[in-house]
């Protein structure tokens, strides 16, 4: 049996994880889904009351929270859906077309 931790895309058959098992959790963090965005949110820290209402609405786990305080968006994974912008009661999130 062959067990390889990291799979790169050009590995030959005998270096690919058996049966497509993935060892270690959360390896999708390597994937940049931020480039899917058409719109981009911005966090206005001064206005944020850290109420956390935005946090659970994010399908992409892209609103990091540490010690009960939110931090800036994880733009590598945020797809720009705008749900967080809509739920913020304090106008602490803007949401605009992204310039690429």
């Amino acid at each position, binding site marked *: 049996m062959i067990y390889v931790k990291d799979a790169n895309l050009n590995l030959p058959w005998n270096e690919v994880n058996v049966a497509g098992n993935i060892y270690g959790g959360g390896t999708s963090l390597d994937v940049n889904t931020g480039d899917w965005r058409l719109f981009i949110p911005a966090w206005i820290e001064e206005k944020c009351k850290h109420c*956390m209402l935005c946090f*659970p609405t*994010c399908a992409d786990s892209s609103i990091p929270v540490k010690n*009960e305080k939110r931090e800036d968006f994880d733009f590598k994974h945020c797809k720009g859906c705008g749900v967080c912008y809509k739920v913020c009661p304090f106008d602490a999130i803007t949401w605009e077309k992204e310039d690429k």
Partner: protein
Amino acid sequence: MAYNLKVEASKPERFVGGHRLCAGCGAGVAVRGVLRALNDEDKSVSGVATSCLEVSSCLYPFTAWNDCFIHSAFENVAASVSGAEAAYNALKRKGKVKDTYKFIAFGGDGGTYDIGFQALSGAMERGHDMVYVCYDNEAYMNTGLQRSSATPKYAEVSTAPVGSKIPGKAQFKKDLTETIVAHDIPYVAQTTFMTNFKDLHEKAYKAHYTPGPAFLNVLAPCPRGWRYPPEDLMAICKLAVDTCVWPLYEVIDGEWKLTYEPKTKLPVTDYLKPQGRFSHMFKPGAEYMIEDFQKEVDKKWERLLKKCK
């Protein structure tokens, strides 16, 4: 312990970004919400039925699951997870597993209401200590918006299109939650995403930590399939609840309890109007569809109120 979103939000994430679910997808929100209710010290094994969630969240060599994950087929997730739970019991007994594991099966409405129904019924009846979570987005979204038995009446879907003779799906939505209640398992609940997620969180917590089988039916809107702007996810959920199209309740050992009662019950049109899948219901001559839909919602709501008294 009282629900505190700040505390919950500070927990390590069990379902991370980088998956391929669409922007604003309800499935991802549902999974995060359910897993967040696990105690920090507990490990989990999630089985996922073939679905948008499965193909998007675990695509070799990238997994969004930070605990353990297994997929094997579409119609078997309840049986699959019951096998993990059985192995856990055996290995625990033999002292080969030390940690505490929780077992969760995730299926979409197709994998739960339809093709996976037999396996679900079997697993609930056998009494495995597991939670079955249906993320209900009311059609086969993974294969391109085909009708399921969870699709609401009149909704336009690709195998029940709106035509000159037939106005979308012909049947009302199957009431799966009640069907599972009839299995007389310890915990059954219906929920969706409300403001601070207290409703979903508390139900998920009870589901995880009530010994024996538990079932959660989570309305998980699909912006593409339902044709509403993705940013309106939370508004759509709120309207589903406030119109009583998707009432929030739980059944604990046969005791029915409403967990949310709208201050003012809104007309179903408030929920239907923002969604493209119902747009034909607002054309001249289609008034009967609205009436029919409202009548059904009213009937079921009244029936639920009686059960919850």
